[in-house]
């Protein structure tokens, strides 16, 4: 990842113990979350690695008694957003805005079936293909609401937006997924 790194402080026994426990208990969840956001193993690895380095650097600021996983997801969400902003400068067409009409990839003509196009062109499982139809923000909301089962308030806290925004993104994402999911279901034996 191209995230600029601040100096990492030399290891202390407390920091090592914190990081060790964090990776042991939450590494899998963090990696899967990152994978669902990026739909790409290499990017998910980089994102998770950077997130744990952030955790190590900021471990003193973690408030005991609060949800570590929510904190972790917030770090991953912010890192992912930063990374997308950087990429957006280079590949503007890859990132449809939330409020803009959904172009299914921006430059692709709508005369062809966008779902068919994506299904044919994407690797990975059905979920990865489905999530790739969504904007990054919509993807985050769907993952947090439907897979991680967070409340709107928790999602708003993690994503740093209002409940109203969460609600509208979720609704829009579900509308986009409707056709694809129903088609996937019919295709299953």
């Amino acid at each position, binding site marked *: 990842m191209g995230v600029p790194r601040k100096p*990492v402080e030399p*290891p202390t026994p407390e920091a090592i113990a914190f990081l060790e426990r964090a990776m042991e208990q939450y590494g899998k969840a963090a990696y899967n979350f990152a994978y669902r956001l990026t739909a790409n193993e290499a990017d998910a690895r980089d994102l998770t690695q950077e997130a744990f380095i952030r955790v190590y650097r900021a471990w003193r600021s973690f408030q005991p008694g609060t949800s570590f996983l929510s904190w972790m997801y917030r770090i991953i969400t912010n890192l992912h957003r930063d990374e997308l902003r950087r990429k957006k400068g280079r590949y503007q067409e890859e990132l449809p805005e939330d409020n803009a009409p959904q172009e299914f990839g921006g430059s692709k003509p709508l005369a062809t079936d966008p779902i068919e196009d994506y299904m044919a062109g994407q690797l990975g499982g*059905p979920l990865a293909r*489905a999530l790739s139809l969504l904007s990054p923000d919509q993807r985050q909301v769907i993952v947090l609401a439907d897979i991680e089962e967070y409340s709107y308030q928790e999602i708003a806290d993690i994503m740093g937006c209002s409940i109203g925004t969460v*609600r509208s993104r979720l609704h829009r994402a579900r509308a986009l997924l*409707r056709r694809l999911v129903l088609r996937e279901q019919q295709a299953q034996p």
Partner: protein
Amino acid sequence: MHYDLETIDDYLHGELDEAHDAAVHAHLETCVPCRAAYDENATIRDWIRAAADAEEREFPGQISARVWETVRAAKPGPFAFLRTGWRPLVGLPVAAALAFALYVGHPFAHGGPQPGIAASDLLLEHDAQMADNPLADHGMVVPASFVDSTQPTSALIEAVDTTSASDASDGR
């Protein structure tokens, strides 16, 4: 009356308040189009969950290896010594320097304004003299602080002795 899809989504996620939740629940029992919309949304959510379970991945060992590598390669920052066991070694000299600076910076230390005579000091001195001076009943006693410093103390003592001696001879 039908509920909009957002409200049905909110119901699906358990985000409605108790009264609203009960109303939507009752409505879905009887309204076929709303029930169909709810079922569709529930289907999408369930499919996403099932797909997520099926595609779940293990935590790659190379991530932790790379994280530890970064942590071990860390160099101390310019102020890192303040966060380590050096704290007492740094703190003591800093405290001593601060104490010295306070002392030197205080007006007493470099001939600044002298302290005035506190009223309470005067009263204490006055009380002490009233108690010791046998002439206390005969007039006001001037505190020593107000005595002209140019007059030698021995002259004052002599004056008092002379007065006492003449009083004694008069009495005879």
